[in-house]
């Protein structure tokens, strides 16, 4: 995959305060890249830097093939940003809002109309296009703001907390939209506090606190920090001899009882699990479920970020 965003010791200071401290990032084309960090970690400042809204104090960055500081208008034309607040013109209709922004992104009149229609339909707002945005719910405004960010088909879409405050239905629409963007080869840079959402959507995640602490695939990170575990639920309940059978299988690192299940840790579950199941069945156990046990991303996040708090 091509690299669509690269930073080299990118730093932003406001007087004595170091908001972003020499970050090195590489984001690949077509991936959903999660950006996680506590409040005040400098996520919004990083987003503003990468969207050429503010200038760095030192370091450099290349965004969508353009150099930060030298090609700022080209960067802004190549990226879309969903800010923390929807920031829509409330007295104007959904249609007027999108046409205005399409014009500011240099789209022709016919392109502006077709793009506005496309995104209003995609977000389920087409029927209400002539109504003032002030009459919209929080979720509808957020969807409008996402439509505005994507209107000019940017190569990278920066989304700052896109589902915060949305009802489950609206949040699902937004998540489906992100998946659709990835399907089109578009890159999404996702700032979120919703760890479940990050886990479901992101190909890779950066843990951030003024500087990037770690970038990894969430599943690889889990495996590295916690090992890979399998949960086996037996009927009516596991017996001590079942645990002994499991422990005897080659490749099993650890096995224990937990809430009526056997939790098995192994280096290579794909190889070990079929042998485990065979051993249990041959030993007379009745298997109800075999599931992969994933530590929640919250645990991973806390393990990485909390020591720095």
């Amino acid at each position, binding site marked *: 995959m091509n690299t669509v965003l690269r930073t080299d010791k990118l730093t932003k200071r*406001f007087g004595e305060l170091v908001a972003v401290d020499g970050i090195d990032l590489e984001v690949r084309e077509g991936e959903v890249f999660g950006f996680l960090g506590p409040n005040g970690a400098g996520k919004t400042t990083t987003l*503003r830097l990468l*969207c050429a*809204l*503010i*200038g760095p104090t030192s370091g450099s960055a290349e965004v969508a093939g353009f150099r930060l500081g030298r090609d700022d*208008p*080209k960067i*802004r*034309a*190549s*990226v*879309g*940003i969903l*800010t923390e*607040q*929807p*920031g*829509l*013109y*409330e*007295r*104007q209709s959904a249609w*007027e809002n999108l046409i*205005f*922004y399409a*014009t*500011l*992104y*240099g*789209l022709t009149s016919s*392109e502006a109309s077709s*793009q506005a229609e496309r995104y209003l339909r995609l977000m389920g707002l087409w029927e209400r296009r002539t109504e003032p945005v002030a009459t919209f719910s929080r979720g509808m405004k957020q969807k409008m*703001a996402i439509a*505005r*960010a994507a209107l*000019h*088909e*940017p190569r990278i879409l920066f989304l700052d907390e896109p589902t915060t405050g949305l009802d489950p239905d609206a949040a699902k629409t937004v998540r489906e939209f992100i998946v659709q963007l990835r399907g*089109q*080869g*578009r890159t999404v840079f996702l700032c979120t506090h919703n760890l479940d959402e990050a886990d479901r959507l992101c190909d890779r995640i950066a843990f951030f606190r003024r500087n990037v602490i770690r970038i990894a695939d969430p599943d690889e990170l889990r495996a590295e920090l916690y090992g890979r575990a399998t949960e086996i639920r037996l009927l009516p309940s596991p017996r001590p001899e079942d645990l002994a059978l499991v422990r005897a299988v080659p490749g099993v690192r650890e096995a224990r009882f937990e809430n009526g299940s056997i939790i098995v840790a192994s280096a290579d579950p794909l190889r070990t699990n079929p042998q485990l199941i065979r051993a249990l069945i041959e030993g007379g156990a009745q298997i109800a479920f075999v599931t992969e046990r994933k530590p929640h991303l919250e645990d991973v996040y806390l393990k990485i970020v909390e020591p720095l708090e």
Partner: protein
Amino acid sequence: MSAIVAASPARPTLVRAVCVREWREALGNKLLVGMTLLPPVVILATGVLAVGAAAINPPSERDVQALYAAAPAAAGLDPKEAVQGFIATYFLILFMLIPTVVPLTMAIYSVIGEKSARTLEPLLATPVGVGDLLFAKSLASTVPSVLVTWLAYAIYLTSVIALGSHAAQNAVTAPRWILAIVVMVPLLTLLSVNLGILISTRVNDVRVAQQIGGLVVVPVVALGIAQVTGRVVLDNGAFLQMSAFLIVVDVAVFWLAKVAFQRENILVRWR
């Protein structure tokens, strides 16, 4: 991937888009429409009524003596004509208040409105240059204010002609006042707009901004009083000098507004 290629729009396209959006927004704000139309309507109606009243009622001897003392140039004129000419001129000075008051309100709403609605960040995230954006915003407040002032002047001129006073007609169509309306009104409007933008960068409350910005009327009122009381004589040369001075001040204030209206300032320092 789509064939759409985003880029900075051409300046006329940007100006048109910003103006149309701001005017739509302004028309939806009844308070702003009222505050825009009230000063010209009041000044125009009062001016026409005053000139009309002077045409109907003969002035007293005391009024005439006071007028001759304040305006020696009127000494040879018929007393009724002289009073009408004097009143017509006085209201022309008040017309010069319109381009200081009306655009100030519009410019303040234009910036503080965007600040409070948090619409500036998405706007600044577009490829548009902030200088172009500031220029477009300035024009969006300047054009309607100038048009309103010119329209009010046209109605005033027509009314004065209809009332049939030669002195009043001569006063209203004097070259210095034509210069004032055609040249100084746009210059005063631009000054007021850019002062409004400058003030709005530091203030979040429309009323506070208006109170500070209201100080821009003080020099105009002072000049008016000085002329009415005969302390200064505003001849053609004085108007030309004032126009040149306004051009210099306009350039300086626009430059200051441009310095304040920077992406990073707006996003990080404006509160």
